[in-house]
């Protein structure tokens, strides 16, 4: 989808209408992802707003040769969402909570990945080949924003073990995607 790339480049040149069109094209997917990670509509709205404003400010950093515009926007959105999640968790910790977000364990069973497209099917196939614990840890980190510590608590396993699940899981994914 090259239109997003063009729209980001025009935004970098100060074209507000192009940025408006970029918002229209990208916001629903980004908002869906923010809702998935944050599970709260008000937080998701804040985060989408911050992420889009950040995209406008940093549009000049975007490089086509470094990958798709969609992936660039996703990284911005997720970083903002994870920041928010961790700020809120820290605040709750201050209020004597345990800092681990209360989310239903999605155990994204064999992935409800509505994996569409060639890339989606390949990633799904590769994720299915991971060990169950590796898969769970990676998906909980991606979709629920859990840190290593939170994962250790959620999966009732030592921190070092969780870290190595993630590390080996990611290595296997990479090897599987690029044989």
């Amino acid at each position, binding site marked *: *989808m*090259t*239109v997003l790339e*063009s*729209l980001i480049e025009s935004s*970098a*040149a100060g*074209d*507000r*209408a*192009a940025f*408006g*069109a970029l*918002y*229209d*094209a990208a*916001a*629903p*997917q980004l*908002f*869906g*992802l923010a809702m998935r990670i944050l599970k709260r509509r008000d937080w998701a*709205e804040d985060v*989408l*707003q911050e992420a*889009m*404003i950040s995209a*406008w*400010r*940093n*549009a*000049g*950093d975007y490089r086509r*040769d*470094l*990958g*798709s515009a*969609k*992936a660039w926007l*996703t*990284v911005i959105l*997720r970083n903002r969402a994870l920041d928010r999640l961790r700020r809120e968790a820290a605040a709750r910790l201050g209020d004597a909570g345990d800092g681990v977000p209360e989310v239903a364990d999605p155990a994204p069973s064999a992935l409800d*990945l*509505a*994996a*569409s497209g060639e*890339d*989606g099917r390949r*990633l799904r196939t590769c994720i299915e080949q991971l060990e169950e614990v590796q898969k769970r840890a*990676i998906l909980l980190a*991606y*979709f629920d924003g*859990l*840190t*290593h510590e939170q994962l250790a608590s959620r999966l009732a396993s030592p921190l070092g073990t969780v870290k190595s699940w*993630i*590390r080996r899981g*990611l290595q296997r994914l*990479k090897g599987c995607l*690029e044989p």
Partner: protein
Amino acid sequence: MSTTEGTGAEMGDERDQRAAEYVLGTLAGPERDAFEAELGRDAALRRAVAAWSLRLQPLADSVAPVAPPRPLRTRVMDGIPDKPEIAPEWHFNFRRWLAWTLGASALAGVVAALAVFLFMPRQPELGGYAMLHDTAGSNAVVVFQTDKNRQDMVIYASVPGAGSDRDYELWLLPPAGKKPISLGVFKPGEREERPLAQDAAQYIKSGVNFAVSVEPAGGSPSGAPTGPVVYGGIFHPPGE
């Protein structure tokens, strides 16, 4: 000139690993801050992050889109400063590029960026846009945009080819029984900027319809759409 080159594959496992964890989101706190600081200085690390963000993108794509509330768009559009803060950053990147790049493809990138920078179109006041989609819900999209004085128009088209010996033609559909007005043929791909047909200008108002039809190469021979209409959408003035 000696900055580390290479893709994730050639890169140390440990650094590629941290790039992966950065994209996954498990790097937190000071670890993440340190990584981001390094990212600003290290082109190979930026490439590794980009590669990981592409690998994991299908996860993001698997989440169902949710329409954000309408006022959020206004808040975002009101929240962006008038001039994007790109110039200093751009110079910074340019120096970095020169530092890491010697190959022909990289040189082409520099030339393209220079072209964008030096020949940046003047920025007339914006007069609104239309996004044209198909009815199948595909990603294909045609964006039409015009300036406030309705002098020029810009078309961005991210659509498949129209077929051999076929062209896409953009039409404005005036209200109440008037004939469609051709805004010309266009090719899929990049941004095209050209003068706006002046007989169309008077009709470009909130909610007016635009359509794209598939026509013989060079455009409709009759001056009216002859082929199937494949994309459509309505015009939004600024702020709507």
